[in-house]
């Protein structure tokens, strides 16, 4: 086995895993606060990538500067989706119904993207997209490093918001028990709407990095959502820390197995770990043991 390949795989796992963690954090935040499984998260990542693409192609706006536009834009998209479709879901079947509704939303967005951008693959461009620097024999792509820094910064901001702000207290209270939160005067509906917006807003950053490291079209969302869902299941549905650990862990383990053993086993290795964890901890690594009362 080649030591450079091993070090490169470790580097790839951590850098790429952090971006997946960011995307999955949005998904798990939405589930934690709203009991909604947002299967549209994959297509929202792709929508975020296409927004960056449109800004770059039509207005020559740099990908990172463009985030100042795309993150708020995706926040608004999230608010609109929540207000139009999800806020109306009620009752014990809410979680199951949310899968259908968000799937319909994803079809709507996918069809629209296909109409606007066609199905031909595109990739985001920038001088830093292809270039890299070396530390020893290991090369670090600028875009991957920037993606890692961006993910860490946004996840830190999210944590700051959750643990250092009054709104964060409301979110955490809603995460713990929506009924009790409402009883102490928290506007759970408003918290839910904003959390959905935040969960969608992070896809702008995730999408920009994804679109810079992969050629994509609207259909790329299918591979993404399956991966994101498995991350939050491993981490524990509704657990932000779990999503981060599982996101980085999943990609890291897969990448290492791909080098040490064979790439054909990289995905399989993750699912084996997932199966073992769920065998002993059905709630995932950091999930709550008891079902929360809605």
């Amino acid at each position, binding site marked *: 086995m080649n030591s450079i390949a091993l070090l490169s795989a470790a580097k790839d796992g951590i850098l790429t895993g952090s971006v997946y963690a960011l995307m999955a954090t949005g998904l798990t935040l939405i589930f934690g606060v709203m009991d909604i499984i947002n299967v549209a998260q994959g297509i929202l990542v792709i929508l975020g990538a296409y927004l960056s693409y449109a800004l770059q192609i039509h207005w020559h706006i740099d990908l990172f500067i463009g985030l100042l536009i795309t993150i708020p834009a995706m926040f608004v998209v999230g608010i609109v989706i929540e207000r139009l479709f999800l806020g109306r*879901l009620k009752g014990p079947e809410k979680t199951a119904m949310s899968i259908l509704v968000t799937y319909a939303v994803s079809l709507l967005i996918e069809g629209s993207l296909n109409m606007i951008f066609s199905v031909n693959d595109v990739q985001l461009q920038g001088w830093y997209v292809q270039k890299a620097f070396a530390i020893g024999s290991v090369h670090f792509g600028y875009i991957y490093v920037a993606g890692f820094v961006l993910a860490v910064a946004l996840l830190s901001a999210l944590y700051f918001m959750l643990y250092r702000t009054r709104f964060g207290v409301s979110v955490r209270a809603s995460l713990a028990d929506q009924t009790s939160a409402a009883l102490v005067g928290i506007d759970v509906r408003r918290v839910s709407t904003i959390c959905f917006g935040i969960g969608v807003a992070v896809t702008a950053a995730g999408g920009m990095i994804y679109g810079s490291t992969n050629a994509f079209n609207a259909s790329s969302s299918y591979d993404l959502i399956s991966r994101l869902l498995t991350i939050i299941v491993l981490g524990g549905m509704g657990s932000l820390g779990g999503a981060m650990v599982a996101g980085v862990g999943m990609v890291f383990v897969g990448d290492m197995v791909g080098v040490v053993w064979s790439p054909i086993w990289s995905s399989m290795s993750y699912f084996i770990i997932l199966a073992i964890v769920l065998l002993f901890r059905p709630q995932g690594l950091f999930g709550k043991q008891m079902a929360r009362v809605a």
Partner: protein
Amino acid sequence: MKLNGKFLRVLGATTVAGSMALALATDSGAVSKSHAMSPIKIGISLSLSGDFSADGQAFQQGYKLWASDINKAGGLLGHPVTLDIKSDASLPAQVQTNYQALISNDHVALTFGPFSSLLTIPAAKTTARYGYAMVEGAGGAPSVFSLKLHNVFDVALPVANSLVPFANWISTLPASKRPKTVAYVTSNDPFTEPQIPVAQAILSKAGIKSVYNHVFPAEVTDFTPIADAVAAAKPDVVILGATDVPTVSAFMQAFEQSGFSPKAFIATAGPDQGAAFIKAVGKANADGVMVPNSWYGLAANKQSKKMVAEYIKTYGGTPAGVNGDVAEAYAVGQVMAAAVKATGGFSNSKIITYLHSGVKIATVLGGAQFNALGENPSMTAYTFQWQGTTGTKFVQVNPANDPNSVKIVYPKPAWGK
């Protein structure tokens, strides 16, 4: 479960709107003109979304172009042709459902194939049960023909030998120029995997050592660690078994970031997607990249030239930018039209018998002549290469003794140079 009216309205409206948007985006494109005779319906399942959507859409363009041409020429035996296209989302199970619905519900008279060997397998099995001929242009993998179904006819090149001209060229280079090492890395797809051992046998015989040989799962979303492992092995040649542009693009990006540029780089598919490939990887990076195929937009074949001109008139672009899928789909229509004309009707059993008779049919791809398994072994494999960084051209480079082949760019220029 009790559902309130408001919720049902929301769900209903969302689903309908979503379906409408998808339907508009993936317009099934029925082609019809007012003719005196009743229309003849041809059923097709295509990947208008999902992993193969880019190829599926290109196939749709090819089928539509053929239908338009045949209708301008008076239709099939005077019947205007209507295409009944259902989207399969690149899912084998949906392909099966689609052909069942096309035959038993929509009562199509004829069927054309989907995109990819992976999807041709369920398509061929399903149509065989109903006794329909399955003429197709993208199911050339051995796994399709190993089914020994009597109804399958692939107009394109059998894929197993696609890399032979490339491997032969490498192995016959003078010893001073001949690469010493090669990496084989392929998706676990029925289209890509069978090509690798054939090339490997030729290169091994020429003394070229394999330094990396692995298969990766088709559902991989991050190719960087695999590409980094290939780069760490520092092979002179990289043979990549890919089915689409994103895979090739990801490997190229990771190679560039690793500071690794092989002397020769060939991918089984992706670079053949014309303008779509260039748009994803950039002109400068495409220089020197190769792909095997049996057709390209600048082919000398007269029928091909006519089709390319019509394509550009309809969809725009340049000859080099026309996706090979378009020609494969168009050729499917040509083979079926010839069979219908020769048999004087739409009897699938007669069409199957006719196509198994050894008859040679001229198509935009060249001659189509089927063996007992439905393969078209008469098709020649070529290697094509992107050349130049500004006036980028897609040219035929192998077999070297073919009059239409131009000088190959070797070694491949460094990425972006």
